[in-house]
Structures are given as C-alpha cells and as structure tokens.
C-alpha cells in the first residue's frame, strides 16, 4: 500500500484531473494461482485431520435391539452406526446424533411424509429421500449436510412460508414455534413471494383449543393423533392442493378427553390453548417439574408459572406412565388454583359467620376442643389431594390423641390395606401394553384415568387385544364387548358359563382391571373374591405376569393405604364429636351430629367448608413439596411452583403445629424428619420414581363368606371435568362440562 500511495502522488501531480479510478492498486500473487500442483501439494502437506468422535443419540434417546443379530450398519455423514432392522433413515440419523428437521413426523404417530422437510441425500439415489419414511437399508450412506440437502430444506421452508401469515407478534406459539426455529436454522434469508397469501376460516373446536387455521401447514399431526391415540375420528383434511383445510367438516366440538394434546403436537400456532391465549410468552415462564394430582395416574407435568401465578400446564415425558400426553382435566384445571382459595384461618362465631383470626388463636381453639373430647369420638379424614407427609402427620396426631379412626376419602367404609396387590395396578401402566385380553370390572377408564385408557387403546390398536367390560353402558374409544352390568356377570365368568371366560383362558397375558368405585359397595369383599376366582382360573397372577389390577380414583388413595389409614370402626361418623377433615370434600357430612366440632384444613372453599367450625388454610399441590403414589405404586414428588396463597401453610406443618399447641408434640420438625418417619411405615414412599411391586399374592388373602349383592355397578365419576376441589373451582372445567360432556 505504501508503493501505491507513492505512485498515486506522482500520478496526481502530473495529471490535471485525478479521479480515484486512476489510483494504483498493487497486484499480489498467491502460490495457489501460480500452478495447480503447488496448491494441492500445500493442502496435502497438512496432516490428515483426526475424525471427530461419534455423537450421542439426539436428546439422549435410547433404543433397543430386539434381535441383536439383526443389527444393520449404515453410515451417517461418514460415521458408521449400528441400528436395529426396520428403522427409518431419520431414526438412524437420530441414533447417530444428527437431528434432521421435520414438521409432520412424530415418533408416536404414524408416518405421513407430507412436509418434505426431512429430505436428506442418500448415495446412489437420484432424488433426495424423505428420511422419515425411507427404511434404512444395510450399507446405506446417508448425508445430511450436503448442499443438495440444504437446498432442499431451504426450498421446503420457502414453500411453507409462502402461505403462512405474518402472525408472529400475535401468535401464541412465538418463542416455541417449530417453524420459527427451523426457518432460522435451515431456511434461506430472503423470500421471493410477492403474490397474495391464502387464508382459511377458523374452526370451532371447543372451549379448550383455539384454532387459527390460516397458520396451519397441513402436516396432519392433529389428524393422526385424533385417529390413533385419542380414538376419535373428529379431524380430517378437506380439499386438495393449496385449498386444503383441516377441520371437522360437521360442526362438531372436540369432545375427547385427550383433545388438549393437539396443542402440543401442532408445530405452528394453528392449534393453541384457548385459556392460555395472549396470556404470556414462553420465555417469561419458569417451568417446574411436578406431578398431577387430579387423578390417580400421576402424570408428569411441568407447571409454567410467572411470578405467583400458574400460567399453564405442559406434559413431561415419562415413558412408563403418561408417555407425552396428559388429559384435558390435568392440562386446564390450573385456573381453579386461583379461585375460591382459603388464605386465612377462620373461626365460625356464634352468628354462624366466619371470622378471620390469627394462627395462634385458631390452633388454640382447635387444641382446646380436641383435648376435651373422648377418644372414640375423634375422627380424621384425609382428602383426595393429600400428600403422603400430611397423611402420616394426621395419623400420628390422631393416634397420639387416642383415636384410630383415620381414613382417606374414596377408600370406602371398610378398607383393607393388608395386602398391597389388592389396591394397586400390579401389572403397572407400561405393563398393560403386554396384555392381550382386558376385563374391565366396574370401571370406566376413559373418565377415571384417561392415561390408562390411552394405554389400553394403544395395546388394542397394536395387538388387537380383546376388551370385555362389566358395568353401566358407557362409550369407549376402542372396540369393547359389553358383557354385563352387575356382579352376576363376574360370577358367570368365574364359573366358566360366560363365553368370555374362554377368551381369558386362552390369553397369554390376561389383565383384569377393577375400578376403585367398588370400594364403596357393601359387598366389596365378595365382589373382590369373585374377581380373584376369575384370576385364579385364568392364571392371571403368575410369577412373571400379574394381571390383577385395581384402578384407583384419587391421587392419595395408594399412599393412604400404604401408610395404614384404616379406620377402626366403619360408622364412626355418626357418633363423632371432633372431626378433622384434611381436604376431604366428597365426604357425606349428613350423618355428622349437629354439635360435632368440624375442623377443615384445605386450600379451597369447597363443600365441606359449609359445615366446618374452624378453617385452617393449607397449600395446594402446586405450592408444596409432597410425595404422591399413583395407582401402580410408583412414588413421585411434587415441587412447589408458586408461593402459597395468603397465610396458608403446608399441611403437615399445620398438623405438627397443632400437635404442639395441644401438648402432644410430634417428633418431626423438618421435611426430612417426617420423611424418615414415613420410611418406618412405608419405605417405598421414599424411593421416588420407583415402583414397589406387591410382595404377596392371593395365596394369603382370607376366604370371604359374604354374599354378593346383585345391584348393578354404578358410574364412579359422573362428571369427568369436575372431580375434586381444584377442578370444581375452575371456570374452564365448568365451560367444558357445560359444552363437552356427552348428554
């Protein structure tokens, strides 16, 4: 550059006009330009770069070799990788650690292959190949980062964005949108579309799913989900070409209990959550991994909260329990956490009206009354949503007061907690996939435990399992034989007179699912004995397969029975003088004498509050760290996502404080201490995410001499959307039960 400036100075001094184009630019030569041999020699002189180490599978995915001899080897971007036979190219790339973009492919749905975003280049193939649909053949060389593959992705992205509206600022999916992420990663930087975009009319799918069908990219994930997983054929693709619309054609609402999952599945903002519309962006939210307690399944969820408010609930992956789905009740009950909350201790004064008092006064009043009452007249009832720690504390408190009349709602008047196999789902929810014959006794899994129903449907679809149902007529989303309505049918099957008994006898893995609604019957022991007779005859309970399952209704029942919340006498309510209700709202309080002192400890002002004399506010499941055991015996823990409301405290802390004020101080002060107390009673409640199988089988169960009552089975859950305190307080659930329940 120095030469150049010198030269320019000499030039400008002689010239009259000096323009910058006359400035001298030095010409430099490079060794590669001089002769081609020199450049290749220079390149070859560098040492061979060491091949990078193989990558781990995408997302930590695990895969199983069903037949180790059948493993194929393919090459993904130069890496050899061994895969089981029958996998697609996309799955092979996932195992190799290469994430291929896709819109229509979902690992739990059938393959559609219509988005074309997963195109990769395969050697010896004239065109790029849709990796989600192409089976991986041995010796295939797959290349995902060649210019051809990249061009294909850019082209597909451009086509998708052509008719996509510019809705990002007002679309709820912004920030978690597959289209946004993939266009940033794989799309080209400019578009060439100058025509008018098409628009589609919105469909009304109900109060839960908001549809903006203009944003739909016609990936058909929702259609496949509805037909395959949910079992309702509500959605379909209408029209052809650019006039394609996803809709219900008839003006129908999506009434399925799994309809909220299409919100997660839709890659763009076409199907979004209506209650969550315009409320928050996903980067403002803090996710807390916790467990759902609205039913006994214990689906894993993530509560997204912003400050003290729960904004939405999203499912978490748990292959064993709920896969990737949650029911509508779980997903949308969160607005019940904001209504009808108890936030101050209250005492009912002489006029019958509640007055807010301090904790000191409330606990003093309760302790005074408790110490004056005789020990047989003290009763404690744990509620549907109680965690194991609080139930342990309640039982300890009442036992120290001299009473043994503690039980949990829903376990009936005479629960038997001696043998665990009689109240757990012994084949575990994931194990239901191995069954080939199902006998449903007095249970409607679609409303009682939607995820168990989804699992049964998955099994029925995959292996054509037979399902027989005994109970009042309900509808199922799989083929099901209605065998009868009452216990008589059980006796018939047990004695072999019914045609279904041959089906059970010929099955390899028969599964019997008994509903927990039977706990409320007086002839419960006889009915269970009859079902066990079927189990014995059909060889249902074996060392390698235990098909005798009980489907519980509440999140607290399994832990309650494990901790021994079994009352001494069955009708102690009629002579009670001191009643301690810990969240028990579905108890029949008519028989409680008028002068009994009722203490209600809970988080919602639901039914039992009207009879209570003292209210002690406690924390809901989203605000406390509690242990819950689901119907299969898997212990799980909730974590606090939001702070407690007002002056509310954790349940077990209230019981512990009450014990101290009453003079019978319980020996634990911290969560760890009460957990160690729990471990002396039921050590499986400390091992989270593990199933403790029932140790003993029917060999130990006593003979039953009761007569079976022939009243037909009743429906255990009348309104799917409103089953406990939280869902009854929720406006969304009220809308659903008004609009979506089948009349």
């Amino acid at each position, binding site marked *: 550059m120095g030469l150049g400036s010198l030269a320019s100075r000499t030039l400008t001094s002689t010239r009259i006009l000096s323009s910058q184009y006359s400035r001298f630019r030095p010409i430099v030569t490079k060794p590669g330009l001089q002769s081609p041999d020199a450049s290749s020699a220079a390149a070859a002189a560098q040492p061979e770069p060491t091949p990078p180490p193989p990558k781990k599978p995408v997302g930590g995915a695990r895969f199983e070799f069903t037949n180790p001899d059948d493993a194929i080897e393919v090459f993904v971007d130069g890496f050899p990788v061994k895969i089981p036979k029958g996998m697609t190219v996309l799955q092979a790339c996932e195992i190799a650690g290469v994430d291929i973009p896709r819109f229509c492919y979902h690992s739990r749905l059938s393959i559609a292959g219509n988005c074309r975003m997963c195109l990769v280049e395969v050697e010896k193939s004239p065109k790029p190949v849709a990796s989600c649909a192409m089976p991986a053949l041995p010796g295939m060389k797959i290349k995902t980062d060649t210019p051809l593959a990249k061009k294909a992705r850019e082209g597909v992205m451009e086509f998708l964005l052509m008719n996509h509206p510019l809705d990002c600022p007002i679309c709820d999916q912004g920030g978690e949108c597959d289209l946004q992420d993939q266009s940033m990663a794989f799309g080209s930087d400019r578009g060439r579309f100058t025509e008018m975009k098409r628009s589609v009319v919105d469909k009304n799918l109900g109060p839960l799913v908001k549809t903006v069908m203009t944003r739909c990219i016609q990936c058909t994930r929702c259609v496949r989900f509805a037909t395959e997983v949910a079992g309702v054929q509500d959605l379909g693709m209408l029209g052809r070409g650019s006039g394609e619309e996803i809709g219900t054609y008839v003006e129908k609402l999506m009434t399925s209990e799994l309809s909220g999952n299409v919100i997660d599945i839709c890659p763009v903002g076409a199907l979004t959550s209506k209650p969550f519309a315009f409320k928050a962006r996903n980067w403002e939210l803090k996710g807390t991994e916790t467990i759902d307690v609205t039913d006994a399944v214990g689906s894993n969820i993530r509560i997204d909260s912003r400050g003290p408010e729960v904004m939405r609930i999203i499912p978490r992956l748990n292959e064993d329990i709920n896969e990737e789905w949650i029911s509508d009740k779980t997903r949308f009950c969160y607005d019940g956490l904001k209504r009808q909350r108890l936030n101050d201790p209250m005492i009912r004064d002489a006029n019958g009206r509640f007055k807010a008092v*301090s904790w000191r006064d409330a606990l003093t009043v309760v302790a005074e009354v408790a110490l004056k009452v005789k020990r047989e007249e003290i009763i404690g009832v744990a509620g549907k949503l109680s965690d194991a720690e609080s139930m342990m504390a309640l039982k300890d408190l009442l036992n120290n007061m001299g009473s043994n009349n503690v039980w949990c709602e829903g376990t009936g008047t005479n629960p038997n907690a001696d043998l665990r196999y009689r109240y757990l789902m012994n084949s575990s929810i994931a194990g239901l996939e191995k069954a080939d014959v199902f006998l449903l006794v007095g249970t409607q899994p679609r409303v009682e435990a939607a995820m168990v129903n989804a699992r049964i449907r998955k099994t029925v679809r995959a292996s054509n399992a037979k399902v027989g149902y005994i109970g009042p007529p309900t509808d199922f989303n799989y083929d099901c034989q209605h065998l009868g309505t009452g216990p008589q049918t059980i006796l018939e099957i047990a004695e072999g007179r019914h045609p279904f008994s041959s089906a059970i006898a010929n099955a390899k893995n028969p599964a019997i699912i008994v509903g927990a609604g039977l706990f409320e019957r007086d002839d419960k022991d006889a009915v269970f004995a009859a079902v066990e007779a079927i189990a014995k005859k059909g060889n249902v309970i074996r060392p390698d397969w235990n098909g005798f399952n009980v489907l519980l209704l509440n999140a607290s029942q399994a832990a309650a029975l494990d901790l021994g919340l079994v009352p001494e006498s069955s009708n102690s309510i009629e002579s009670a003088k001191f009643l301690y209700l810990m969240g028990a709202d579905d108890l029949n309080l008519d028989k409680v004498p008028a002068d009994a002192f009722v203490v209600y400890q809970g988080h919602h002002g639901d039914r039992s509050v009207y009879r209570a004399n003292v209210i002690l506010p406690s924390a809901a499941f989203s605000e406390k760290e509690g242990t819950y055991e689901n119907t299969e015996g898997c212990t799980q823990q909730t974590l606090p996502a939001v702070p407690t409301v007002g002056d509310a*405290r954790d349940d077990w*802390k209230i019981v512990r*404080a009450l014990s*101290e*004020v009453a003079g019978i101080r319980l020996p634990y002060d911290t969560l760890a201490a009460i957990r160690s107390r729990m471990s002396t009673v039921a050590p499986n409640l400390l091992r989270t995410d593990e199933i403790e199988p029932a140790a003993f089988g029917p060999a130990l169960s006593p003979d039953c001499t009761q007569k079976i009552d022939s009243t037909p089975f009743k429906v255990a859950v009348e309104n799917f959307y409103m089953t406990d305190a939280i869902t009854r307080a929720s406006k969304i659930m009220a809308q659903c039960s008004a609009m979506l329940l089948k009349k």
Partner: protein
Amino acid sequence: MAFTLRSVKVPPNSASLEEARGRVFDFFRQACRSIPTIMDIYNLDDVVTKSQLRSIIASEIRKNTHVTNPKVIDMLLFKGMEELNNIVEHAKQRHHIIGQYVLGRQGLAQDSDTKDEGTSDFLKNFYKSNYF
C-alpha cells in the same frame, strides 16, 4: 442551626478502640437528650414512652457490638449522627419513626413473651410464615 452544629462534631478518625467507645457513649447521650424534642415533633406521646425510645436506641447501638475496628465504628457513628440529625430537623415523618423504630420490636408492647415461652422454634417460625 442545631443540626449543622451537631454534624460538625464527629471527626473522621478515632485513635483507639477506647476513644471510639467513648464517642459511642457520647452519641448515645446526645440521642437520649434529643428524645423529648423527637416526642414533641412527631407527637409520639400516645405511641411510645421516653424510656421505650431509650431502649430502642440502645438496642440499635447494641446491634453492632461485634465491631472492633475503630474506623468502622466511626463510620457507623457518622451514619447514626446523620440519622439523628434527620429525625431532629423534621426531615422524616411520623410514619417513618413509627415504622422504623417502634414497630416490630420483640421485647416491646404487643407480643409479650409469656405467650411464647415454652414453644419450639418450629412453632415460632410457623406463626411467622410458611417458608423456614
């Protein structure tokens, strides 16, 4: 004016711990002598008594008994003088005085210890809040 005279009086360094200690006591005496003025300015006759205010000032000073560095003591004294000046020259208001100095003291008025005598730490924390 009264406040300018006072603020001049605190020199920046004490030679030793004893000198700093002496200054602390001087400050305490000064504060106690201005208590009648404070009660008059902010109309605190119905809220606290003079002896209660003296105990409050003493407890505030006692909060820093663990300090041994004379320079730190000087700094704390400077801040104390500043606060005293602010209060005496009516730069604060009644609700400041009541909120910062009268309420929430354990040994005073409302929550007498006789109710809480035999209770455990658990119960004391339980009455205060859910998170402990």
